[in-house]
């Protein structure tokens, strides 16, 4: 079963704009991770935020985590056409330290 739910399911923006994707989950977690997937191929890890962290940055990426609301957001600033991909949040923990539980993903399209 899916743990996380990303919102929106699809997002279309122009190059240079910012893109924000949200993720909600149901159980307690050890950490939350964001992955990117191009054209149905392998997943690429973007960023990991631990349950005791509230915000994390990596280049043009900013992730926030609100454990009281069981939600996270991923912000991509100054988007590029190459950022076009599906983005998934994945949670780890909640009694299962051996697996990631993924949401259904957000399809981001960045128009040149």
């Amino acid at each position, binding site marked *: *079963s*899916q743990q*996380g739910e990303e919102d929106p399911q699809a997002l279309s923006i122009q190059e240079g704009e910012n893109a924000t994707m949200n993720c909600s989950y149901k159980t307690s977690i*050890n*950490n939350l*991770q964001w*992955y990117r997937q191009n054209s*149905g*191929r*392998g*997943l*690429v*890890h973007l960023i*990991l935020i631990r349950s005791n962290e509230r915000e994390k940055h990596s280049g043009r990426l900013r992730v926030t985590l609100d454990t009281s609301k069981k939600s996270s957001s991923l912000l991509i600033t100054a988007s590029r056409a190459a950022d076009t991909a599906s983005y*998934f949040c*994945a949670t*780890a*923990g909640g009694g*299962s*330290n*051996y*697996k*990631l*539980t*993924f*949401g*259904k*993903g957000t399809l981001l399209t960045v128009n040149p």
Partner: protein
Amino acid sequence: DAGVTQSPTHLIKTRGQHVTLRCSPISGHKSVSWYQQVLGQGPQFIFQYYEKEERGRGNFPDRFSARQFPNYSSELNVNALLLGDSALYLCASSPFRGGVNTEAFFGQGTRLTVV
């Protein structure tokens, strides 16, 4: 260093057949996990192996099995294929037993089509 490699990249099988998918983790990684991704959905956890032992299993029927070899490579086997088994099968490796306390490194996947 090479990343996680999976073979084959594409596969077409007939209902009722058996399939074996293979994964080589990053050198030095002892944990291998398998995920199934149906079109339009996020990946679903199938198995995790660490040091050649099964450490976790997802909600999949007994038709799915896996094993890890002494060199830490892994095979995923699916018997009596159903149309619903058509999916992208992803392998992920990690250096740690916990597997998910740091980033997971995914292969490019095997696209299985059952006809």
